[in-house]
């Protein structure tokens, strides 16, 4: 049997739709034939190949004992609706096997579908009737629920399921009947393209070839519409004197327009908008959008001109009136701390100057209007006001990276300012107890810490991050967590092994990780790692803390002295080697270690000999743990011998 479920609503926020569809599919249950679709006004689930009813089943009912009074037996038989002779005998009792007919799928769906609708989890729900009435993301206005084109009867939020859908608000009929087979076509005739893929393809095919691709804007428009059609427009080229960052932000964030490239890396004085209708025959939509954009650009120009009346340098003082955080003072104070940090990190005069100007754009009209342009506007103003390129670029970049995917600041000055700014926020917030918990991270400290890690690693900076964390175990743990996250493409036990050997230098952590990852598949490595674990355990059980080197005179000839000799040789060889060959060389110690454990008893009664053997193991463990703590490696190929 075929099922069609359409939940007709008022306009659902576009960004919530894909997740809601995924939930519907999961909630419906494991069926391969389930298809989910949506537009801004409908969530649709279609399933094929459903059984007409559940399978029939049998249930055995035990009755009175075989020697029970006849009246009791007859009573039992009557209750089962059969003659006494039809009863079975089992385990000393009368009984009867009842046949239970499977319930019809339609009846089951009448119960499960409204439950499914109610179980969709939305970021924010509303009610639209009386207090206590059903909640959903937006008001539900109609429901289609058809099983083989017969209505599955139920109600959700006071709306009864039926067989009539509703079309596009202007291009379609308000009510029209649908069937499973005709559904998509009926929608199409009523101005609705059901498939998101088709809407996406339609937009892409109609966009000008030189538009600047913007995947997230495209997704927004796919789910903001039922029948998308691209319309292009123009703006006066004189607006191109405004920075392209400002123009594209206005177009992207405020108008949901695509920018268009001029072929030379700049913007063309054109834009592409996506309508939720089939065309613009009278040119009114184009004209209207052009008019709105002109007003927006005029505003931006007005702000730009007003802002130039006061330089960034002069605005630094104004930051005394801009609160950073109630307990952490104002942005002027933050600026001073960041300047100091940049100097400590080793920033030059340009970097320090950039730190001083970095937050001044928070007082500008343009940033108040377009907060997403903070930093960028500062950089543009610094340039316009004659600051050196190194300064303006550093200001421009200092919020970067804004995500895991975003690039890091382009210059060292920018990198230092970015690290100092984020570090100041991170440490300040932890000190006043604003520590992220669960999904709550209002000051975006995870992103800040992640950004610091990313910059240090990718710019290969000699910044001993750990030394700036105030020896605060909470901050260290928090940052370490971000380090692990940054390196999440490596195996977790390799990350553990490398971090256990220290993380003062993050570029070095990466180098060691790459080396460890390369050496791990070699034959000797994991067995040696197992031996290291054994060494660790022996040292731990013996409570051995002496750090003196083993005495060669106490070594027994044979496996013990061989191990020492090999160790000593490798120790000398690896001093000048890069990590990977060094690790490979360390792995060659394996046969000597194995022979030692085979032939030599550590726990002998002679305390001097015992301690010397422990000292040898300790020396090996200490020396070779400088790159990675091999005992952290989880052995899969061989059982650990202890």
């Amino acid at each position, binding site marked *: 049997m075929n099922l069609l479920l359409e939940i007709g609503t008022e*306009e659902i926020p576009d960004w919530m739709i894909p997740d809601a569809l995924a939930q519907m599919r999961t909630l419906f249950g494991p069926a391969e034939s389930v298809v989910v679709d949506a537009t801004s006004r409908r969530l649709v689930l279609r399933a094929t190949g459903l059984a007409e009813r559940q399978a029939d089943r049998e249930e055995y009912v035990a009755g009175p004992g075989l020697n029970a009074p006849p009246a009791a037996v007859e009573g039992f038989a009557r209750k089962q609706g059969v003659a006494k002779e039809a009863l079975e005998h089992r385990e000393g009792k009368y009984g009867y096997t009842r046949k239970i007919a499977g319930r019809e799928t339609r009846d089951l769906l009448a119960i499960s579908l409204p439950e499914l609708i109610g179980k969709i989890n939305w970021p924010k729900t509303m009610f639209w009737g009386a*207090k206590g009435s059903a909640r959903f993301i937006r008001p539900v206005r109609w429901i289609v629920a058809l099983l083989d084109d017969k209505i599955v009867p139920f109600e959700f939020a006071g709306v009864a399921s039926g067989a009539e859908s509703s079309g596009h608000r202007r291009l379609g009929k308000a009510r029209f009947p649908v069937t499973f087979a005709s559904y998509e076509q009926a929608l199409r005739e009523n101005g609705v393209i059901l498939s998101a893929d088709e809407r996406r393809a339609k937009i892409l095919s109609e966009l000008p070839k030189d538009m600047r691709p913007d995947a997230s804007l495209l997704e927004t428009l796919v789910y903001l519409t039922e029948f998308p059609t691209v319309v292009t427009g123009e703006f006066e080229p004189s607006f191109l004197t405004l920075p392209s960052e400002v123009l594209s932000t206005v177009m992207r964030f405020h108008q949901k327009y695509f920018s268009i490239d001029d072929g030379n890396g700049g913007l063309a004085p054109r834009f592409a908008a996506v309508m939720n209708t089939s065309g613009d*025959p009278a040119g009114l*939509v184009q004209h209207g*959008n052009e*008019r709105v954009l002109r*007003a927006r650009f005029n505003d931006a120009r*007005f702000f730009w001109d007003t802002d130039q009346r006061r330089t960034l340098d002069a605005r630094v003082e104004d930051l005394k*009136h801009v609160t950073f955080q109630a307990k952490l003072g104002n942005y002027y104070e933050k600026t001073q701390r960041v300047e100091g940090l940049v100097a400590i990190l080793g920033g030059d005069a340009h970097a320090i100057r950039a730190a001083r100007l970095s937050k001044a754009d928070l007082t500008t009209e343009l940033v108040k209007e377009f907060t997403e342009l903070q930093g960028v506007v500062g950089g543009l103003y610094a340039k316009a006001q004659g600051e050196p390129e190194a300064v303006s670029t550093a200001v421009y970049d200092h919020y970067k990276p804004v995500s895991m995917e975003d690039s890091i600041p382009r210059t060292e000055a920018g990198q230092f300012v970015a690290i100092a700014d984020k570090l100041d926020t991170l440490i300040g917030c932890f000190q006043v107890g604003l520590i992220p918990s669960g999904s709550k991270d209002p000051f975006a400290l995870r992103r800040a810490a992640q950004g610091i890690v990313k910059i240090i690693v990718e710019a290969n900076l000699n910044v001993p991050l750990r030394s700036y964390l105030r020896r605060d175990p909470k901050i260290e743990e928090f940052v370490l967590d971000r380090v692990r996250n940054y390196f999440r493409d490596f195996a977790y036990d390799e990350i553990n092994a490398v971090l256990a050997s220290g993380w003062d230098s993050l570029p070095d952590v990466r180098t060691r990780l790459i080396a460890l990852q390369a050496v791990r598949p070699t034959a000797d490595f994991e067995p040696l790692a197992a031996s290291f674990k054994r060494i660790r355990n022996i040292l731990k059980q013996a409570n051995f803390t002496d750090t003196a080197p083993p005495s060669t005179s106490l070594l027994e000839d044979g496996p013990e002295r061989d191990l020492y000799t090999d160790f000593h040789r490798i120790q000398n060889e690896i001093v000048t080697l890069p990590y990977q060959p060094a690790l490979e060389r360390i792995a060659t110690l394996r046969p000597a270690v194995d022979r030692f454990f085979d032939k030599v008893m550590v726990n002998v009664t002679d305390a001097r000999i015992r301690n010397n053997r422990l000292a040898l193991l300790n020396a090996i463990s200490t020396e070779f743990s400088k790159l990675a703590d091999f005992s952290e490696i989880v052995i899969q190929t061989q059982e650990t011998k202890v």
Partner: protein
Amino acid sequence: MDSYQQIIFKLKNYWAERGCVIQEPFDTEVGAGTMAPETFLRVLGPTPYRTGYVQPSRRPADGRYGENPNRLYKHQQFQLILKPSPDDVIDQYLGSLEALGINLTEHDIKLEEDNWEAPTLGAWGVGWQVMLDGLEITQFTYFQQCGGIELDLVPAEITYGLERLSAFLQGKDSVYDIEWTPGVTYGDVRKRDELQYSVYNFELADRDTLWKLFDLYEGEAQRLLALYPKAEQKERFPLLATYDQVLKCSNLFNTLDARGAISVTERVAVIARVRKLAVGVAEAWVDQSGVQA
């Protein structure tokens, strides 16, 4: 081409035909039509109500001395409350645009998510901004809470931005060029206000005096709210007058804010003070309505 005032007449007529009580603007300064008691208090409680009115809305920080073609210290909203919200509320709304002569088949209309929150009123709702050819012409909200109270009947609030809508209909690039009535522009009527209030709000308003006034109005509201629980005849108690004091506080807060007299930290605290008063009035209003019912 309809003049500004004809557009208002048409909206009033359209909604009057749909059972709305059409009123004149509320006479105390407000930042939005929502704050007028016809919305803020009427949405509370279980009694259905439909009303529409033009509300001049003062936003001191948005003043631009009459120089910016799109921004105003005082703009006018057509504010509509439909309580409870009818099932076809969006169709009715779209019908009002057609009544204004907008042929919807030639235009692009989108409802884009835009949730609304008024922290000073303890009010929030969910809804959309209505985009007509890329221009936001209406704010559409299903109220959920007001004065911190979950509503008995969810109203639809429809707020038309009259200047934007008129500029769109008349094809004007500046609000000041809108034809108010033939021969008279919006600028002729309002530009002087824009200049003078910008000068006052940004340059001449005396911070100390405004703070004193704020404290006085707050004190009066607090005094009245403290009296209400003890009032012998609650139905006589002047909660509407109490609410006036709250609105005065709200406008003074906005003016102080525009004057740059409120730091970000203080801001939160002052908003909380106004909100406390608004919540107090809302709770008393619900209680009083129960007494009367």
